[in-house]
């Protein structure tokens, strides 16, 4: 789990006369990495990702309040009742966005992105919330209010959220 990869040179940090910590000023440091492995369940989100493989985009709708959530919410936070799945067309409108000039490399899909890339918040037609995802477009072309649609990806991808992204509407 913990791998100590190297030991750095011992350093002595400066201390003036009368330093109460004089006996503790030699400093040793290690470089190390920590690795953990998980089985990660997608839980009640699972059907969203399973349908994404079939190029269908599902949201959830609450029967009581009518709110359509994308990303889905199995439990409506307004009504505390189970929701049900509804399919959206995948067309929508950019409500806001940012152009990222560095990639955090959070997984292999993200590490493969070329910078700059666009993170867009899209109001999908029929939804009540904004869905965040990559918008594959020239950053200069992107504006608030532009129409976009979901493009589905034939794998393989590492995380199934990358089975889709947004592209400008033709």
């Amino acid at each position, binding site marked *: 789990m913990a791998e100590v990869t190297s030991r750095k040179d011992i*350093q002595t*940090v400066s201390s003036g006369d009368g330093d109460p910590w004089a006996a503790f*000023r030699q*400093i040793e*440091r290690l470089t190390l990495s*920590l690795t953990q492995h998980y089985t990660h369940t*997608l839980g009640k*989100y699972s059907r969203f990702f399973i349908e994404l493989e079939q190029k269908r985009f599902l949201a959830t709708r609450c029967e009581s309040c009518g709110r359509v*959530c994308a*990303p889905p919410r199995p439990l409506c936070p307004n009504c505390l009742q189970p929701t049900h799945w509804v399919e959206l067309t995948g067309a929508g409108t950019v*409500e*806001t*966005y*940012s*152009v*990222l*000039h*560095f*990639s*955090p*490399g*959070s*997984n292999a*899909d*993200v590490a493969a*992105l070329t910078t*700059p*890339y666009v*993170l867009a*918040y899209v*109001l999908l037609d029929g939804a*009540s*919330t*904004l*869905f*965040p*995802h*990559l918008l594959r477009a020239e*950053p200069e072309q992107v504006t*608030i209010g532009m129409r976009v649609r979901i493009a589905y990806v034939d794998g393989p991808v590492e*995380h199934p*959220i*990358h089975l889709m992204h947004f592209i400008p509407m033709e």
Partner: protein
Amino acid sequence: MSRRDAGADTAVNRLPVIVGVGMTKFAAERLDASARDLMAEAVLALLADAGMSDLKAVQHGLCSYESDHFNKQMTLAAILHDTLGLIPTPTVRVEGGGATGALALRTAWAYVQSGLCDSILVYGCETNGRGVSSQTANQLFALSADFDWEMMIGGTYTGFYAAMMRAHMHRYGTTPDQFAHVAARNRRNAGFNPLAQKPMDLTIDDVLASRMVADPYRLLDCSLLSDGAAAVLLATEDWARAHSPRFRTRPTVAYVATGCGTDTMRLGDRYPEMTNFRAKQAAAEQSYRMAGIRTPLEEIDVAELYDSYSGVEIQAVEDLGFVPHGQGGAAIAGGLFDLGGALPVNTSGGLLGRGAPVGATGIAQAIEIALQLWGEADSRRQVPNARRGLTDTHAGIATISVVNIFERRD
């Protein structure tokens, strides 16, 4: 009594006062210090400040740290409690993302008010500095976004904040030179604070010329990653008089009000409110009611605002009710919140200049307000005759927001 009025009728004689404060200098890297070394340094500074020789009379501990990942240690609170010799007094750890330190103080406020203890040491630290690469730091911060929906698409907090500011610019006409004013001013204020991490003398053009990180935010619009620790000793006034010689010689600073609000984890779930922080508005409203404040711009003398990114200060002065929504950018660019202005903010240098070791940040903000109200800040940043001060601290994109208010009582 409605839920929102809770606390309004609590007995005045249990209102917590600040007995003493201590913090390390915040640093990009303290290669000579682990989290426990930093914490010990801050608490020894607190003892000297309060004129106390030990913690034996202190009745409760409260540990404030955010990340098991950055610190490579779970149950760090138990280790720090032990390190500080607080055993066997009771303890509790508080965690609330970026708001951790302010939420810790708020919790301690309730512990004293309830009578659970008469004195409580609130101590916080974090090692967010160069002990991790900046990529690892970004990944760990992204891990505090919603894993499958935000982190896995390549989202980062810089990106989420940038998208909010993009919406603010679109709706209100806010401009990059307005938020560059914050980046320059807070780093200039840091030059008047010997414990600040990175004072810089910048022009607005310098900020606008720094490299783009997440449009519209540039490198100099982003706050610092820091190693550091901070501690505040809170108590009833009776306890403070009995145990701290220094307390008896200073103006009394009371912790008079606290508010806390929350919002959805994901920015997109807040639609159609994309420009501002609802949780901050709720926290401010609660704390103003508790403190009896009606016109915050006139009734507050000094404030430490959560400037995780420069533009966040524009959103904050609006959500805290200092100026109407949409007018934050112009008010800031006009100098309303500079030293010498109507309400100086981030006199310490803020997260942009003083630094932000997460678990210590909210505590360090309270320390700056205490110094200002005692009249003990460096003369170049002291706000003349400051009598009431506010701290604004939040987690995520203001997913949890905390406002604390302090008053000089003499």
